[in-house]
């Protein structure tokens, strides 16, 4: 590289600054385009076909969506998705509570914080196994607690009315840890002078939390809520491990039902599967929209 590149030098030297960003971006864009962006549109297109994964896809228009409308399993899955969303939202206040509890400076607190965060680092497969043992009606810890209280043990995972709630509780475990860490980070940024001023004004306890601390934690709350909703809509691992959607499909959610329809012994209905995936995608798009708008605004401000 010469230090005195005259402006009339090579074409490359003149255009380097405009072409360079695209060269740097190319590998990532190609990979992301091929594996993430293009498949979204391919799936949407495929949802208009009837296809078993082997033969020639047959165009059926919106038939898959009409079939979904008449499919009780679809509505059951959608209902369970709602239970997941509302149940999962408990992770936000629970995470806040834990964060407030741990937001102190006593000896060893850092270790406590990381141990509380621990469940998030562990695979959902492992946690799913642990919770299915926990719920085991003959030897599970829950059954032991019930029998010691003189109650009939609850077969959580084989009871179609409570099974989804049981799995949601398992899913909450790592999610609470995640929200806790978001709030702990947020609490680092809370201004002590404002707290002190509010205290002089006589604010304590609940008022202090609601009026002074929470408003300052808004960024953390926003992320916790969005991440929790998206996480609830993505729930798959624990359902697959703990019940495989059962009993009788009563613990399916859209993400699991889609997988079952498209890739399991129930048949390879690729078109129908992508129709379910498309519905899930559009639900998710609402929350993705929130995230992108927020990021876009931040960028405009800075």
């Amino acid at each position, binding site marked *: 590289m010469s230090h005195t590149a005259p402006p009339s030098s090579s074409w490359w030297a003149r255009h380097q600054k405009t072409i360079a960003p695209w060269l740097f971006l190319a590998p990532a864009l190609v990979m992301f385009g091929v594996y993430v962006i293009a498949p979204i549109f391919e799936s949407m297109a495929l949802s208009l076909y009837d296809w078993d994964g082997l033969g020639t896809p047959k165009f059926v228009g919106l038939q898959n969506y009409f079939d979904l409308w008449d499919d009780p399993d679809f509505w059951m899955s959608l209902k369970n998705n709602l239970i997941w969303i509302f149940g999962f939202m408990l992770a936000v206040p629970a995470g806040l509570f834990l964060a407030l509890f741990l937001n*102190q400076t*006593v000896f060893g607190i850092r270790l406590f914080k990381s141990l509380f965060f621990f469940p998030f680092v562990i695979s959902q497969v492992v946690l799913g196994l642990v919770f299915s043992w926990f719920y085991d009606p003959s030897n599970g810890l829950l059954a032991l607690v019930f029998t010691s209280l003189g109650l009939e043990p609850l077969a959580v995972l084989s009871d179609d009315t409570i099974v989804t709630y049981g799995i949601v509780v398992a899913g909450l475990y790592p999610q609470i840890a995640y929200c806790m860490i*978001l709030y702990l980070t947020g609490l680092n940024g809370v201004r002590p002078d404002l707290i002190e001023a509010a205290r002089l004004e006589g604010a304590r306890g609940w008022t202090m939390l609601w009026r002074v601390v929470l408003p300052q934690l808004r960024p953390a709350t926003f992320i916790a809520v969005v991440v929790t909703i998206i996480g609830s809509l993505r729930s798959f691992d624990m359902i697959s491990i703990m019940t495989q959607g059962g009993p009788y499909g009563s613990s399916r959610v859209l993400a699991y039902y889609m997988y079952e329809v498209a890739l399991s012994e129930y048949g390879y209905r690729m078109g129908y599967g992508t129709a379910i995936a498309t519905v899930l995608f559009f639900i998710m798009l609402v929350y993705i929209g929130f*995230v992108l708008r927020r990021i876009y605004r931040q960028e405009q401000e800075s």
Partner: protein
Amino acid sequence: MFPTPIEKASGTTRWLYKVALPISMVLWLLPIIAVMLTSIRGQADLTNGNYWGMPSEWMLIENYSAVFQNTPMVQYVLNSFYVTIPTVIGTVVLSTLAGFALGTYRFKLNMVVFLLFVGGNFVPFQILMIPVRELTLKMGMYDSTMGLVMFHIAFQTGFATFFLRNFIRDLPYELIEAARIEGASEWQIFHRVVLPLVRPAVAAVAVLIFTFIWNDYFWATVLIQGDHAMPVTGGLKSLNGQWVAQWQLVSAGSILAAMPPVIIFFLLQKQFIAGLTVGATKG
């Protein structure tokens, strides 16, 4: 108690707090402690119904060596490394380049590309599932660790680019300007000026991606069939199916499967949390 610093509280409260901490922690970690205890339990305990009490005999070495000798667990763990390590490297390379482009150049589509990476990162896996599976089949990578690696690199690049781009944008721009005036080429600016500064962010991204990929279960079930390429998450699930009554062995397998991300987390906690909480304090 909150947000009053505990030092200002009365002696009794302080004492109560210090007692409450370890108790609540044990309660919180009870599920995990239970698996740890079960993984060193003997079969006799389980036959006698002692699933949750203290183990009556300590079978640490017996159980763990049984897992290694009687199951493909070694293969599963190795497979997870074959998937995770190339993914981390590939993602870091791609997203550092892309993050540099988005963080330092002003061009028309900058924001569009940036939001594309961020948005794609939140997409449900199911909408990608069938096309990605078809693509992997067509490229002859189905049922191989390479097929998983290719997809994981592509998908993780979304998040990693978002993180690295924000980090690079916060670097002092004067450094880059100065290098340009000195006559450095764009590649030299990337290589000599930005790359050395970006290391802490790369560490954060690498730790997070390692954990995400190690714990991935969905794509392992979609793109892998046989034990020869199955990562530890999928392997554990089939172990559980085969050994329904041998909780102690499945527990030992679970602990092994959980180990690598846990170790990495404790070694690089600060980076891990920095990556996970981007945006939790400003905005």
